[in-house]
């Protein structure tokens, strides 16, 4: 119902090439843009590396001020600022993730919320990892013990337990999303502890993947497709496919709804996808993974988001 392209702006904490969190949504946007027919249909503006929430808030307000139709706050930490500025721009739609709260209770009507059920893909990765490991030791290179990284890891642990109760899953956290050397050092130690299969989350894992490739082990990825970069090492990646969410937000807006919808990427709704690399894997592994996926989709397998300590 408007002339010219739909204008979408996004503010994110890392870079569009981080191979994980920010890249996942940025590629989703670009994909939707391509489908819609390029820049004439969908205009994308981004601000990256906004670790500072105050700077991010300024960016969000600026985009709203500049008349962008949809402004995406791609980080949970931006929520407080978002709730503060959203009422000033009722015509603008905001999207916020990962989150569940659209601000309805607080009387806000122009915020969409999105999250990813990372534990589901984590579970499937875990099932495969459990079957793949020969040493029965699996390492997890974790960034910060929070958010979708924590969900993913918890799901992964449950998946391994389901497919291979003998296997040990060792988890480390680096307290950083970006320190690749920390990730590498953690991976080295996991390998020294006997791990032959590793997984991990956030942009700090690239060094760990590179290392396990050199050492001849396997990796399971999450957030973005990491198999493109390391096809012979990354067995599978859980990929957040935000296109459906983005498309739905666009559709909602077109129909006059500015917010109030919460999305969750799940296996069932197709938001969580799997990308496989060139690793030759046994059919039984694929079957187990497929069954697990079916079980989750059907609600037969319930993946816990929290684990007892």
């Amino acid at each position: 119902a408007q002339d010219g392209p739909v204008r979408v702006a996004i503010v994110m904490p890392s870079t569009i090439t981080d191979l994980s969190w920010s890249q996942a949504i940025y590629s989703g946007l670009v994909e939707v843009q391509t489908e819609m027919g390029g820049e004439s249909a969908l205009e994308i503006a981004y601000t990256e590396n906004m670790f500072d929430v105050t700077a991010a808030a300024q960016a969000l307000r600026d985009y709203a001020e500049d008349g962008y139709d949809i402004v995406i706050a791609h980080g949970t930490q931006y929520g407080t600022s978002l709730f503060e500025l959203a009422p000033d721009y009722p015509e603008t739609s905001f999207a916020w993730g990962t989150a569940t709260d659209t601000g309805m209770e607080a009387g806000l009507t122009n915020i969409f919320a999105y999250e990813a059920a990372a534990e589901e893909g984590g579970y499937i990765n875990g099932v495969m990892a459990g079957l793949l490991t020969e040493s029965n030791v699996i390492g997890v290179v974790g960034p910060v013990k929070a958010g979708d990284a924590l969900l993913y890891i918890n799901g992964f642990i449950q998946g391994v337990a389901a497919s291979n109760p003998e296997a040990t899953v060792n988890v480390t956290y680096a307290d950083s999303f970006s320190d690749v050397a920390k990730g590498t050092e953690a991976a080295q130690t996991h390998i020294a502890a006997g791990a032959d299969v590793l997984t991990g989350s956030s942009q700090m894992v690239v060094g760990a993947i590179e290392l396990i490739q050199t050492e001849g082990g396997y990796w399971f990825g999450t957030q973005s497709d990491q198999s493109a970069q390391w096809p012979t090492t990354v067995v599978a990646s859980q990929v957040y496919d935000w296109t459906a969410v983005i498309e739905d937000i666009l559709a909602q807006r077109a129909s006059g709804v500015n917010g109030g919808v919460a999305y969750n990427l799940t296996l069932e709704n197709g938001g969580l996808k799997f990308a496989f690399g060139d690793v030759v894997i046994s059919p039984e592994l694929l079957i187990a993974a497929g069954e697990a996926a079916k079980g989750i989709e059907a609600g037969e397998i319930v993946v816990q988001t929290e684990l007892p300590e």
Partner: protein
Amino acid sequence: MNNDLTLAQILISAFALTLGAATPYLYASIGEIFSQRSGVLNLGVEGTMLMGAFVAIFFASDKGLQIDPAIGFLAAMIVGGLMGLLSAVINVTLKAEQGISGIGMTLFGLGMSSLLFKMLADGVITATVFPKLNIRGLSDLPVVGEIFFQQNALVYVAFALVPISVWILNKTTWGLQIRAVGQNPKAADAMGVNVNRVRYSTVILGGVFAGAAGAALSIGLTGVFQENMTAGRGFIAVALVYFGGWSPWRAMLGALLFSAANNLQIWAQILDVRIGNSPIPSNLLGMIPYILTILALVFARQRHSLEPAALTKPFERGEN
């Protein structure tokens, strides 16, 4: 959880990993020792390391120039030397406040390396790390072989630099000039030593080593480059110089201690060490290396005998 590892196995791998992890610090600290011994505090190591890290991988990676890692290492040193030259101009010739200019160099290096990464590599850039040198005979030795003789060439070079730099500082003409210029530049000047030239040489050398440190991180340890991948390691390297009381040997000890503490806290997470029944939060375990470093300084009672008396003081002839 159960890990069927004996304590001995854990310790052996911890030592072996420690040597590799200490390597970037070692390069940077030794370079910094040279510039500080001549009286210049170069706090810009971090930025130089980042430039070195990127350039090294850019030369080595098939996404970049696809040349040899050794050439990457060399290129990192050259770029580091150029960054050193820049900081020499600023600190020595323009007599800037050294702590602050270091922060400027850090920001500049961080920005430029990220920008180059964006422009030239776009996304992830990876390279095969320097291979482990399996030294025939030695590598197979039990314990010793695993710890010391299964490392890559950059590790051996770094540790070889320790005695070499001690020798340079104590036995060569240049070393004598460095020590004199750092202690009493006026006296050195009055004896016909070109104080600023000596400081240029050490700050540039410090840059070369910081570039090498970056390379050790990108093509020695991780095989990748990411924006800000040094994550404060340059500052730690400077801190280790103080820790080591300006002695390369003791700085090496510091680098090893710090890296060992870090590795052990990773082990503590892997082994799921608990207090009572509850796991120790990883954040708290992560503090250990830093707390240990401070404690080590408190208890190791600093020796100041090598402290360059003229550290951070720009030289101006005739100023009293």
